[in-house]
């Protein structure tokens, strides 16, 4: 009880007295925690979604069979003849787009007669008449359609009209279900299905024996796992970015506590003189931190839940365009998330409280007799810190040269952390040297500027922590801006290089990284024969599984590509010989992300399942590619057709004859398509769209940086309030010496401005170094992309200006406090 009362008096009461500062600190921690939680929630929701959307009506199963280009139907028959108890459920799994509202929905084909599961799912059993009807479809309860409704779905390049024959149980979610036969016909499957689910006690080897060699048998759910694994690097990087705001928040707890310890030194000395132990003092400071952390964690949890709404949309869009078809699952705040929020809130607070707490415990009882805090100048060993910083810099350089660990750029992250440490440790020395160098210059500006500079240099420790926090946030923002800007420029250059055709055709049903709707072959033939068309390149993509990771197998017309198109290969200046060689069967080229992920080099051989067979392909080259992260294996169209004979194309590049006007060409092509749901995009439109997707993908990283900066600016505001309160005697004195109110306010603004200037300078330098690590180490190791360095000057200027303005604006309220002080009272205090 007594200890609680002490806690109250020495910890809670001071916190309550400085309500504004406490609130600002808690807010900063809450923002940091909130971002981490939001990203965690959004990542979970986005990762849970592909599972949900394709497992519609899958029910219980032991195994699943898949194959590149589809599982031959005869596999179903062969499995059924096994002398084991077995249930075999072939499925067609695709997506369609609702014609009216452009919503993309799963479209699943199952054997409605054999599969009693539909009824079990809570819907009514389909009657014989509906099963026979060509336009029969069943709707999941989340689709919003009712029995008897008409629904127009765009499947591949064709719009079809269906009548909803029944609404299924909750297991069908937002999907539409067709009978297997009509699904196969309408979705253009030629005697293949997409997946076979098996319920059987038979062992894997028994089942494998009857399957064609190209088929892959896996435990049910393995595909979801693969997708999870593929997403891991993306989520991991996002997660790391999300912790930056928390780190910045920790800086601010450190600042708040060390200021309050310095300020309360006499008080601590008195308590010690009256018999408090070191441990008690240590405990008091740590419990103050824990309380800040607890409040920050709780508020952060709420904030995170709110921010997750926005984050999940951004994350899901990225997952959808780069990785796998998905619709975000609902956001779920689990007990684990709650615990995590509290743990990181309190953990960050306690870690940042260690030094101040230790310092408080070291206050001798004699401090009570000393002349008070004014005489106490927190010591900062700036030269020792500079030395440590140099060591960190060296270590960062070494860490950046290490290989990834288990596919993750762990050393890259370490290098980034060490770089930040380098910057932070160098700050005190930098400030004190800058202070002496700039003194003359500040003097010339005026007394306020000189005073501002001196007082910053005078409270070196506090200033260093603030500049450290702000410059870390600035550095990360600069680094990410440079990385994204470089990436963007690289992609733009790549598109310039790659996209040479005049028009691009694609089916209206939207594609994504793992979804390749098709255009019928006859349409392509018609376009190829048009008068104004010089050549077309038919591109067909399939989702495959290569060594346990999803990849894309595609076929293109090498002859057309070598005459009209372009593709840049790593280490090759003239790609034409590669395209020539690619015309031979048994050869392939792979994209850079694929090569990096699977450690494949030119000259290697790939063993690839295609249709029912396993094919060996020689790798001719590795090409630059930024279209998706799963990686491409590209073969000649004739090689592809040999194993996967479906002649439909996923998209078509059209090269017009010289002299043919673009609009005229487009009219010809559109005429040939005659009402099919195929989009005709000009080269320019395609690029615009690609860059729009790119920008959307990286919006989340900017949002994360913005929060980190907000945290840092909050910290500046709170620190300036403290600064004003601590120096109120001096501020009052200035008024006695003839300083006016605006002059006092200006001094506070100068301090904020100098802080901002320092932080921007340090942040810019540090950010440049960090961007190198991001571009050449972390990004390469986790995604396998070559990014060329590029300065996004305009973005950087904008960002830095914005941060600078925010820092100065943070001084508005503290400056107001400063001018409201009553000089007679504050000067005579103590």
């Amino acid at each position, binding site marked *: 009880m007594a200890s609680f009362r002490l806690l109250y008096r020495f910890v809670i009461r001071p916190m309550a007295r400085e309500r504004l500062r406490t609130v600002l600190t808690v807010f900063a921690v809450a923002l940091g925690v909130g971002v981490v939680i939001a990203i965690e929630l959004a990542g979970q929701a986005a990762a849970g979604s592909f599972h949900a959307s394709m497992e519609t009506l899958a029910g219980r199963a032991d195994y699943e069979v898949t194959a590149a280009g589809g599982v031959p139907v005869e596999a179903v028959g062969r499995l059924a003849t096994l002398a084991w108890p077995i249930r075999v459920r072939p499925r067609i799994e695709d997506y369609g787009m609702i014609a009216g509202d452009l919503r993309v929905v799963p479209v699943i084909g199952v054997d409605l007669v054999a599969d009693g599961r539909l009824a079990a799912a809570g819907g009514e059993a389909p009657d014989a008449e509906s099963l026979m009807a060509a336009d029969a479809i069943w709707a999941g309860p989340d689709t919003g359609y009712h029995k008897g409704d008409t629904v127009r779905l765009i499947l591949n390049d064709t719009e079809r009209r269906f009548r909803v024959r029944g609404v299924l149980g909750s297991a069908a979610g937002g999907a539409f279900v067709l009978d297997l036969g009509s699904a196969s016909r309408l979705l253009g499957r030629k005697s293949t299905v997409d997946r076979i689910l098996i319920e059987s006690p038979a062992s894997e080897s028994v089942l494998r024996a009857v399957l064609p060699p190209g088929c892959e048998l896996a435990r049910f759910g393995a595909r979801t796992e693969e997708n999870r694994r593929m997403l891991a690097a993306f989520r991991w990087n996002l997660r790391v970015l999300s912790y930056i705001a928390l780190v910045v928040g920790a800086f601010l707890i450190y600042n708040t506590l060390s200021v309050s310890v310095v300020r309360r030194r006499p008080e601590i000395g008195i308590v010690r003189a009256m018999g408090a132990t070191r441990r008690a003092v240590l405990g008091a400071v740590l419990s103050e931190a824990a309380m800040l952390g607890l409040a920050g964690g709780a508020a952060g949890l709420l904030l995170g839940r709110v921010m997750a709404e926005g984050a999940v949309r951004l994350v899901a869009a990225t997952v959808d365009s780069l990785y796998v078809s998905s619709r975000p699952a609902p956001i779920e705040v689990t007990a684990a998330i709650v615990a995590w929020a509290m743990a990181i809130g309190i953990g960050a607070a306690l870690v940042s409280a260690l030094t101040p707490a230790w310092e408080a415990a070291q206050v001798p009882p004699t401090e009570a007799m000393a002349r008070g805090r*004014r*005489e106490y100048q927190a010591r900062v060993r700036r030269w020792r810190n500079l030395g440590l910083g140099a060591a960190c810099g060296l270590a960062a350089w070494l860490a950046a040269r290490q290989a990834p660990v288990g596919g993750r750029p762990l050393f890259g992250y370490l290098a980034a952390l060490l770089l930040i440490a380098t910057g932070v440790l160098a700050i005190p020395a930098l400030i004190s040297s800058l202070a002496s160098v700039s003194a003359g210059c500040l*003097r010339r500006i*005026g*007394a306020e500027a*000189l*005073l501002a500079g*001196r*007082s910053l*240099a*005078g409270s070196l420790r506090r200033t260093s922590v603030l500049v450290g926090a702000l410059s870390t946030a600035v550095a990360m923002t600069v680094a990410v801006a440079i990385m994204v800007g470089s990436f963007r420029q690289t992609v733009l250059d790549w598109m310039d290089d790659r996209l040479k055709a005049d028009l691009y055709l694609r089916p209206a049903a939207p594609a994504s990284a793992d979804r390749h709707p098709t255009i019928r072959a006859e349409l392509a033939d018609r376009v190829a024969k048009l008068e104004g068309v010089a050549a077309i390149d038919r591109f067909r993509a399939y989702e495959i599984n290569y060594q346990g990771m999803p990849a894309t197998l595609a076929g293109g017309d090498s002859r057309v590509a070598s005459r009209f198109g372009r593709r840049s290969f790593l280490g090759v200046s003239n790609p034409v010989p590669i395209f020539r060689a690619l015309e031979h069967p048994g050869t392939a080229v792979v994209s850079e992300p694929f090569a990096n992920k699977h450690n494949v080099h030119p000259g290697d051989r790939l063993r690839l399942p295609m249709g029912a067979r396993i094919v060996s392909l020689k790798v001719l080259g590795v090409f630059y590619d930024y279209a998706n992260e799963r990686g491409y294996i590209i073969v000649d169209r004739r090689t592809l057709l040999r194993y996967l004979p479906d002649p439909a194309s996923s998209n078509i590049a059209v090269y017009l004859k010289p002299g043919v006007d673009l609009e005229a060409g487009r009219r010809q092509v559109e005429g040939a398509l005659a009402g099919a749901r195929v989009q005709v995009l000009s080269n320019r439109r395609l690029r615009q769209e690609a860059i729009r997707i790119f920008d959307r993908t990286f919006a989340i990283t900017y949002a994360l940086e913005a929060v980190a900066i907000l945290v840092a600016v909050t910290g500046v505001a709170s620190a300036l309030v403290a600064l004003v309160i601590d120096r109120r*005697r*001096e501020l009052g*004195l*200035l*008024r*006695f*010496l*003839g*300083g*006016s*109110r605006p*002059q006092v306010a200006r001094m506070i603004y100068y301090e904020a401005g100098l802080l901002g200037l320092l932080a921007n300078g340090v942040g810019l330098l540090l950010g440049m170094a960090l961007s190198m690590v991001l571009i050449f180490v972390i990004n390469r190791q986790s995604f396998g992309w070559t990014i060329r360095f590029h300065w996004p000057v305009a973005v950087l200027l904008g960002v830095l200006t914005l941060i600078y303005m925010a820092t100065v604006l943070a001084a508005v309220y503290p400056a107001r406090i400063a001018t409201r002080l009553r*000089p*007679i009272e504050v*000067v*005579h205090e*103590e």
Partner: protein
Amino acid sequence: MGILRFERAGKQYSTDGQTVTALRDISLEVETGRFVAVAGRSGCGKSTLLNLAAAMDFPTAGRVILDGVPTWPLDDFALTRLRRGKIGFVFQSFQLLAALSAVENVELPLMLAGENDCRRRAVESLRRVDMDGYENRMPFQLSGGQMQRVAIARALVHRPRLLVADEPTGNLDSATGDHILALLRRLVDEHSVTILMATHSLEAAAAADTIVRMRDGQIEQIQEGR
């Protein structure tokens, strides 16, 4: 015509409903070139009187006229300008800015007033208080007496019409205090500075030309010393 005149000035403080009368019916005239001491017990209103004299605060009754200008009803900016031009202030606890060197402390009022030639005038002012050679010392490198000298130099650097000193010897031992008093005396005699000094010690007050004795916010007696 005096540099400073109190005309039936009074000051009341009101804190949470209670009013405290710190000064009542003060009439006083300080002539140019005089050294006036305000003496009295703790709490009798000396600091309040000095703050009114230094245009740091307004009287709640009567008028305070500084160099011919009534301080009421001036706005904050006009008061600041008045202080800048006419007042130098010395405190009991020196009040040097720890982050500034001695000479920088001294030139501060000039810089705040936006004047030029600050450094030369500051050095000169330090010389007047026998502190030449200490220009670049930081306050923590100075003794109490030295700090008070620097503070006096700072109060005089812009050649104010009136130097207001609130217990300038209060934090010093008596020998050092005597030196400071002698310095103030010399400033009056040789540089015709006008000084209004508060003190609770009669010995200190003895250095002045005029001693104003106060009790309970009122002037008890005005005693012409020399």
